[in-house]
């Protein structure tokens, strides 16, 4: 922590007027002196021995400062298998998952050079690259993955993401429940220490995609320290990734420096990563003054930035990140939403294109179905007949449901929680106005705090009759997003036919056949309208002009900027980003505590 926290520097000297002026001048100079101009480093090598590309700044300037807003967040760990929902900034950098994701959302080799499904389709075998070393001198082997997954199933560990492998890896559900030992889960070493076998509960086609989340802990360190928390202490951090922990302060800053013992296949040009943690506040000035190298922007930021000559010239990078959809859900077990025609009437009353144009552009696209265009197996055109804007049809459907012109329709509470990124307040107000005015019904808005909202939504039976909520993917396959609506899932719409399609899709290995199954499932979901799908969120980013590289370029879907799952071990963006020479004199402040 700083000197100030010890109270020493806080004792300010007695100030005369002259002293004040001298001091103020000195402070001004000191503040201005922080701004840096990167010098050329093309051809020279960074701390990991990687030759820097043409146009790159010198090795000393190859640091990347990312801002994180800790409002509503808490940071407990840096490793996926220690804690998922409360991972700190720059998490998952100390290890290499079996597979990685490239810019075009394709699964590519990570620690595993190759993999295949068994003939009976009940297991997958991954072949690890040889010679990837942990910083404690041990080699990365199948044992690290086996021990990590066993740790995740341990009831004493009480891992917050254990649902992810439940029902997927053999015996995993029973191990979490304490019914069988964790050693009996279907993860084991194959014919040698470089072969890992994952046995599944049945045929599971999407295992390689789910294995993006196989960022292992070191088996030796896990045994030595008893939990994965060893990685939040620089003295005990064990890494096989290109970075190691330098500083962990979950309320202010996380700093990762180069792991000079790194032997893995993916060398990044950037030597040092800094996660600046802010408890709220306006991020734009922090970006404008060079405190951070990148900024996630809201629609409001865009309006402000457009008025500033420097920021308005910046390129706005846009991508769907975790392919988040925002939608209205219903309690389909109770009137009036137990009637499919009522739900369909609401779906046809929303003019998504106008709504997005007036409230969310350019950071959203209309949602005619649950899956964002570009997401695996997503379709759009076959769904439009069920979600297109057609007020006359909507009125007719409502009349068929027994509520002509809204007559007899009971008053309904529409619950929501505020979210600035998604501008939810404006959206729910527009939706309510549209429904009430188009259909003559009485929907009343009711805001809740986020925790209360989700607690009430997740209650069985649910305590929310109608609500506005989002969902973002956990892994890159239709089986993940579409499972939100399977019976006894997040919402109380039960449909055996839909469940059957999801099970069939998860087991099917051939992509064309899977596409057919998931198209049918999407049509079924959209037609039955257990929710009204409103928009797919796009995340907007600004990067300081000196941030360059392939990682920021457009992918095959037209999305650009660093995409899901972010800058780190699980994606190939790590090698594709560097700090270029600062030709535009964009201000840049080197954070304290990095060399």
């Amino acid at each position, binding site marked *: 922590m700083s000197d100030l926290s010890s109270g020493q520097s806080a004792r300010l000297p007695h100030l005369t007027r002259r002293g004040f002026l001298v001091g103020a001048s000195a402070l001004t100079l000191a503040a201005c002196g922080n701004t840096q101009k990167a010098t050329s480093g093309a051809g020279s090598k960074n701390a990991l021995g990687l030759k820097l590309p043409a146009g790159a700044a010198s090795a000393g300037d190859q640091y990347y400062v990312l801002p994180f807003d800790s409002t509503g967040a808490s940071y407990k760990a840096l490793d996926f298998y220690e804690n998922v929902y409360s991972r700190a900034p720059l998490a998952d950098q100390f290890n290499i998952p079996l597979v990685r994701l490239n810019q075009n959302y394709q699964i590519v080799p990570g620690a595993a050079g190759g993999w295949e499904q068994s003939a009976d389709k009940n297991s997958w075998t991954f072949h690890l690259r040889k010679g990837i070393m942990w910083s404690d001198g041990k080699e990365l082997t199948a044992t690290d993955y086996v021990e990590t997954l066993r740790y995740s199933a341990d009831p004493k560990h009480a891992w917050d993401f254990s649902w992810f492998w439940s029902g997927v890896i053999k015996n995993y559900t029973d191990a979490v429940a304490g019914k069988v030992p964790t050693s009996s889960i279907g993860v084991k070493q194959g014919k040698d220490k470089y072969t890992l076998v994952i046995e599944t509960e049945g045929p599971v086609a999407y295992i390689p995609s789910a294995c993006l989340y196989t960022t292992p802990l070191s088996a030796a360190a896990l045994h030595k320290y008893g939990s994965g928390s060893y990685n939040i202490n620089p003295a005990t951090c064990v890494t096989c990734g290109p970075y190691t922990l330098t500083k962990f302060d979950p309320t202010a800053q996380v700093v990762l420096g180069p792991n000079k013992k790194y032997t893995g296949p993916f060398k990044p040009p950037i030597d040092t990563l800094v996660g600046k943690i802010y408890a709220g*506040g306006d991020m734009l000035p922090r970006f404008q003054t060079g405190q951070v190298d990148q900024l996630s922007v809201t629609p409001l930021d865009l309006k402000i930035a457009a008025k500033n000559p420097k920021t308005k010239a910046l390129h706005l990078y846009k991508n769907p990140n975790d392919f988040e959809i925002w939608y209205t859900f219903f309690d389909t077990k109770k009137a009036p939403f137990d009637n499919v025609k009522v739900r369909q009437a609401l779906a046809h009353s929303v003019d998504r294109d106008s709504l997005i144009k007036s409230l969310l552009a350019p950071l959203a696209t209309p949602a005619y179905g649950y899956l964002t265009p570009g997401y695996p197996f997503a379709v759009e055109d076959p769904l439009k007949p069920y979600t297109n804007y057609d007020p006359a049809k909507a009125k007719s459907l409502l009349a068929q449901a027994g509520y002509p012109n809204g007559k007899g329709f009971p008053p309904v509470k529409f619950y929501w929680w505020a979210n600035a990124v998604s501008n939810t307040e404006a959206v729910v107000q527009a939706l309510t106005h549209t429904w009430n005015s188009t259909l003559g019904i009485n929907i009343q808005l009711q805001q809740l705090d986020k925790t209360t909202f989700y607690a009430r939504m997740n209650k069985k039976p649910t305590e929310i009759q109608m609500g506005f909520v989002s969902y973002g993917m956990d892994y890159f396959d239709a089986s993940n997003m579409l499972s939100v609506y399977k019976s006894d899932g997040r919402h109380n719409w039960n449909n055996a036919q839909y469940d059957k399609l999801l099970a069939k899709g998860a087991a099917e290995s051939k992509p064309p056949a899977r596409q057919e199954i998931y198209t049918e499932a999407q049509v079924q979901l959209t037609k039955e309208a257990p929710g009204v799908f409103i928009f797919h969120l796009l995340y907007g980013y600004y990067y300081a002009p000196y941030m360059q590289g392939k990682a920021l370029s457009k992918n095959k879907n037209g999305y650009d900027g660093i995409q899901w799952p972010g800058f780190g071990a699980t994606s190939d963006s790590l090698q594709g980003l560097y700090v270029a020479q600062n030709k535009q004199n964009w201000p840049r402040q080197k954070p304290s505590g990095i060399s």
Partner: protein
Amino acid sequence: MVAYLARRFLTLLLVMFVVTMLIFGLMHAVPGGPFDQTQQPLPGPAMANVMRKYGLDQPIWRQYLNWLWALLHGDLGIPFEQPTMTVTGLIAKAWPITLVIGGLTILVSYVGGLVMGCAAALRHNTWLDWLLTSAVSTVGVALPNYVVGFLLISLFSVKLGWLPVGGWGQPQDLILPVIAFSLYPMALMARYTRASTLEVTYADYVRMGRARGLSERRLTVRYILRTALIPLITIMGPNIPNILTGSIFIEATFALPGLGSYFTTASLHRDYPLILALVLIVAVLWGTCYILSDVAYTLVDPRVRLEGLSR
């Protein structure tokens, strides 16, 4: 005096006990728990593991007694949101930052407010009075501190580039947050000081003193200011706990890793041990400040007697 203080502190202990019991009940009564997931609720067995790990599977009365017993042993528990720290460690790390900002704010605002208020009262109905009370004080009271913060950042950080936009670790980081945080209490202080000073200025005993030939300087320092301080103590007392526990807006605006933000995040996350610790801090500070205010009255004006003290 000692007996009086002892009695007040015993009352304070009782109040704290009642407050923590109430808060404990209330925080368990609101919907949503500390380990509820938003995207994907945990399956039953997994949630049972989590609840067992944190002792939340026990009856609420036992959880409270466990917490109370630990507290009596000086243990405030483990924050659910940062289980690698203790609540005591977390507070020990964050509070000094808030105290530095708060202490400087108290110094700047109270000294500045007193000087401004006195100057305005002693030169009332002049341009100086108008400037200090109407312009500075009204603006200070009317503008929320986060708005002041944004304005200061826009001018001194973004436009002029003189001072940091936020952060913690160097002396210049203190300047803008202290100014932004001080403006409201300073304006308040100035207005109250002016009003009470003006009131005393026209009191009979001051006129009497003037008639007896006492110098204006002696009258101002010994009679006017001293008496004017009494209502100010009433204003100052309750303000101090607010300032010393931090402002979430100031800390967020200037990226200060202080205690302020925990007051909201702990509630939002249902972080029970942290909520209880923060409630304790606030209760102790409020209680102590009220006691100290009462003692301060007697120091400023010997005619004031503390209840229960022998006359």
